[in-house]
């Protein structure tokens, strides 16, 4: 055997011996009460834990297990898993450190989270996600100057994203620099897909600058925005691993709302496998079936839901919807009547009742039901629009116009409301107002077919 080869063999033997003698990796983190977990979560973290046990020295496997826990709100298990992954990582463990910081923060360990984030940023200064998290943590701790630094780095790293400008704007506001803040926040509004959060802070900056009118508008438009977090290399895995029932139902609701019915259906069928008798799952799938124009299947699901809980309020409401859509008006009226009686202070039964009453041709009563629904729920634009259409249908043009205007005060970008203003203005003979409304709708949605039709009609009337 050549000398070089024997040295290689010797080294390999020593390596193997050292590996055998080295401290064994800690046991994989498992929940102490798996029986309490949602079945989907139990399966996921069970599989990830098995994979980690099969590769006990794999940081990747431990880290993925941590992500599985994190995605399903099991912060402590996630933290422990990331803490196992970090020393095992042969490369740069920064992503596991970043996620350790995230779950520490969620578990209420804000100071430890901050410490970890500082370390990550030192190691990976080019990570905009880490910088953003650091900025947010510093804001929470009241270190506005430190936050400015973190967010300015985000601005440099991600000039096309709103996150840096938004954070820096907030920090400048806290530092009493509204003029600088306003510039930053205007940029954030421009860049953001959902600019509400930036708008609210911009309103505060305008207010501090004495620009009262702009402040009032920005504050009103800035309510209830969603935070925008920059993605890190594991964000996709986190999304994929989010399988707990409430999250899945929320995702299905969004899919249903955006009319991606097949995807909603698939997701709900998965939920149904685990929860065959759960009214919330059965009902949501029934709604999907209704939207898919499969009323028989919807009814079957509703019957199963009623069998599981005969008194479940939502089931009766959906049954009323089913009855309305399938022309069983008497049943719809009966169900909605019961629902209104059971929950007179709740908008939903009144809305359902109005639909049944419309189907029965009782338009005046339907309008009264929707008016009651609107009193109880002023935050749902669909109620305004439905009532507006009902007013139009009964030639209550002035009422309709006033209602559409009211909805636009809340949602200035609500295109159907602008079109309602146009239609009712036309009906009232005010072509100038109708033209303004159509123009506003086209500015918001240049391809809207009804807007174009109304524009044509206006041209005919004017010319």
């Amino acid at each position, binding site marked *: 055997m050549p000398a070089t080869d024997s040295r290689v063999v010797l080294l390999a033997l020593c390596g193997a011996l050292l590996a055998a003698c080295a401290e064994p990796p800690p046991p994989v983190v498992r929940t102490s009460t798996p029986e309490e977990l949602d079945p989907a979560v139990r399966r996921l973290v069970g599989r990830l834990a098995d994979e980690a046990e099969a590769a006990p020295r794999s940081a990747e496997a431990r880290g993925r297990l941590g992500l599985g826990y994190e995605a399903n709100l099991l912060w402590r298990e996630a933290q422990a898993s990331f803490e196992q992954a970090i020393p095992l990582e042969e490369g740069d463990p920064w992503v596991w450190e970043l996620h350790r910081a995230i779950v520490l923060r969620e578990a209420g360990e*804000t100071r430890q989270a901050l410490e970890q984030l500082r370390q990550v940023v030192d190691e990976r200064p080019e990570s905009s996600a880490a910088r953003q998290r650091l900025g947010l943590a510093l804001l929470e701790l009241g270190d506005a100057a430190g936050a400015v630094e973190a967010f300015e780095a985000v601005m440099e790293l991600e000039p096309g994203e709103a996150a840096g400008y938004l954070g820096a704007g907030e920090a400048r506001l806290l530092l009493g620099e509204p003029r600088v803040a306003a510039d930053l926040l205007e940029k954030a509004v421009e860049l953001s897909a959902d600019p509400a959060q930036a708008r609210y802070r911009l309103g505060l900056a305008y207010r501090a600058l004495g620009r009262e009118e702009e402040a009032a508008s920005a504050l009103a438009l800035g309510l209830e925005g969603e935070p925008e977090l920059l993605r890190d290399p594991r964000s996709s895995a986190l999304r994929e691993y989010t399988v707990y029932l409430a999250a899945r139902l929320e995702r299905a609701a969004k899919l249903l709302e955006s009319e991606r019915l097949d995807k909603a259906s698939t997701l709900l069928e998965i939920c149904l496998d685990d929860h065959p008798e759960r009214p919330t799952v059965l009902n949501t799938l029934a709604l999907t079936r209704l939207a898919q124009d499969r009323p028989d299947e919807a009814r079957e699901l509703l019957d199963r839901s009623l069998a599981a809980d005969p008194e479940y309020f939502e089931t009766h409401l959906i049954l009323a919807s089913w009855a309305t859509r399938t022309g069983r008006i008497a049943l719809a009226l009966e169900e909605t009547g019961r629902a209104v009686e059971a929950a007179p202070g709740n908008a939903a039964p009144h809305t359902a009742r109005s639909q049944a009453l419309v189907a029965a041709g009782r338009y005046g009563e339907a309008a009264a039901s929707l008016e009651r629904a609107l009193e109880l729920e002023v935050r749902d634009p669909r109620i305004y629009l439905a009532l507006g259409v009902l007013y139009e249908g009964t030639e209550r043009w002035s009422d309709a116009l006033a209602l559409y205007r009211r909805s636009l005060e809340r949602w200035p970008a609500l295109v159907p409301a602008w079109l309602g203003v146009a239609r009712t203005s036309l009906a009232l003979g005010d072509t100038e107002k109708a033209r303004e409304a159509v123009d506003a709708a086209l500015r918001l949605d240049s391809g809207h077919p009804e807007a174009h039709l109304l524009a044509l009609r206006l041209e005919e009337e004017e010319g």
Partner: protein
Amino acid sequence: MRSRWLWVRGPVAAVLAAALWLGCSGEEAGRSAGDPAATAAETTAPEWFEDAAAPLGIDFRHVRATGDQLWFPEMSSGGGGWIDYDGDGDQDLYLVQGGDLPTGPDPRFHNALYRNDGERFVDVTASAGVGDTGFGMGLAVLDYDGDGDEDLYVANYGPNVLYRNEGDGTFSDVTAAAGVGESAWTTSVAPFDIEPDGDIDLFLANYVAWSPSTEVECTGVGGIRDYCGPNRYQAPAPDTLYRNDGNGVFTDVSAESGIGESFGNGLGVTALDFDGDSSTELYVANDLMANQLWFRSADGRWVDEAIERGCAVNMAGAAEAGMGVAVGDVDLNGLPDLLVTHLAQETNTLYLNHDGLCADSTTTSGLAMDSLSRTGFGTVFADFDHDGWLDLWVSNGRVARARLGGDGASLDEPNLLYRGTGPARFEIVAPSRPDGPLGRAETGRATAVADFDLDGDPDILEVNNQGPARLLRNRAADGRPWMAVLPVEANGTRTPLARVRFDTVAGERWTAARRAASYCSSHEPIGHLGLSGLDEAPAELRVVWPGGATVVLRSPPANRRLVVRRPGG
């Protein structure tokens, strides 16, 4: 300030309504809290409070449920407050019980009145006749009939109750005759004087139009069943305004006043003079909806100006889970600032009042971090250690399961105490014992302050959901000088709201005698200032009643409770 970290939003919005528009029913994501832990930068100090409930004879234990049905009202119950029902000058205790919702009123679960005998608290519920068995939430103490003794209004899930104090140690249920049997789900109540005409009116914060028949199913951590959040029901309740007509009868003026046209998941309410013009405003903390700040206009209508004035939502424009409200001039500019307690994952939020416009100053005040992991309910600003700066107490307790396994179903969390260190600056006070009032975990709800032992410092009543009531005797101020003023009406009953100004060499210190604030609570309405941080005692003190009636006392004595009567009576 809401956490900007979460990618999972708590309540699934638009569920019931969405069903009708072919939306979707959904479940609420976990409203979980992390496990609390002591933190590095905390101030350690001897325990500020000692448990006095059991030694003094208070054995009340709140019950939220006997089964595991998880009815929505269960987790929010637990009220209590202070009343001098026997007119002897010291504060007696009234505690509001929950019960068992499915079975309805049950004599085992009733509210309790404890008479303060100086040495002991004695349960006089039965003889006084105030053991309401409704599923209880909060209370208000007021002299509604102007006869010089303190009456009691009890807020329930279900019909509320007004007890008239007969002046002989007993009460009569006069709800029907007085016309105040609101059957909505009332949580906190503010007695105040609308006009002001001397007749005490009532503002009722109502929560959700919930009934057992509209209960829905929610899941929390890991998919197990849990309590829902309010928006899951899509049924915020309008609040109620009762005008006292001065003849023993109230009129519901909710509709004509504009109050009833606005909806919110109301949990906390306070009456305050927000802009210092001697009129009274109302601030309502709403759970996951924008808070409201009501101003009364010249035509008698009330207008909500919270959004314009910056105290409806946090700095991010997000409506948070408003629970309780503390009021105090923490930045010493003469105007009351507001602290609203919230869910874990949100901070408790401090709105500093600058000339009637609010700024969310949570982070710069030092109040953000430690509140992020806990769910706050009852809360109060008071100068507990008599150093001249307002301190802050927050009673905590979750609204949903936080963890799996073991005591996972428990909603217990430790409370928070912050020491005021300067204008709008606070630092956390660490517990010195794990089993002490600060260290132990319970499900805190109501928090009401009073100087029950008449030693000059504010003590705390804390009512725990599914747990014991705690009476926390103040030890932080022992031996330190103070000044206190008790504003009373012409007939000698305590005024529900009056502003108090102490003129010190360092400037003006404004405080207020206030009944209504916190969560489902009623404070002893007393103006109080600790003097140990001041070079000299205040040279003057001024009491200002709603409407502007004022009494000025020059060179007021320290370490004495001063009773100041409203002029013109």
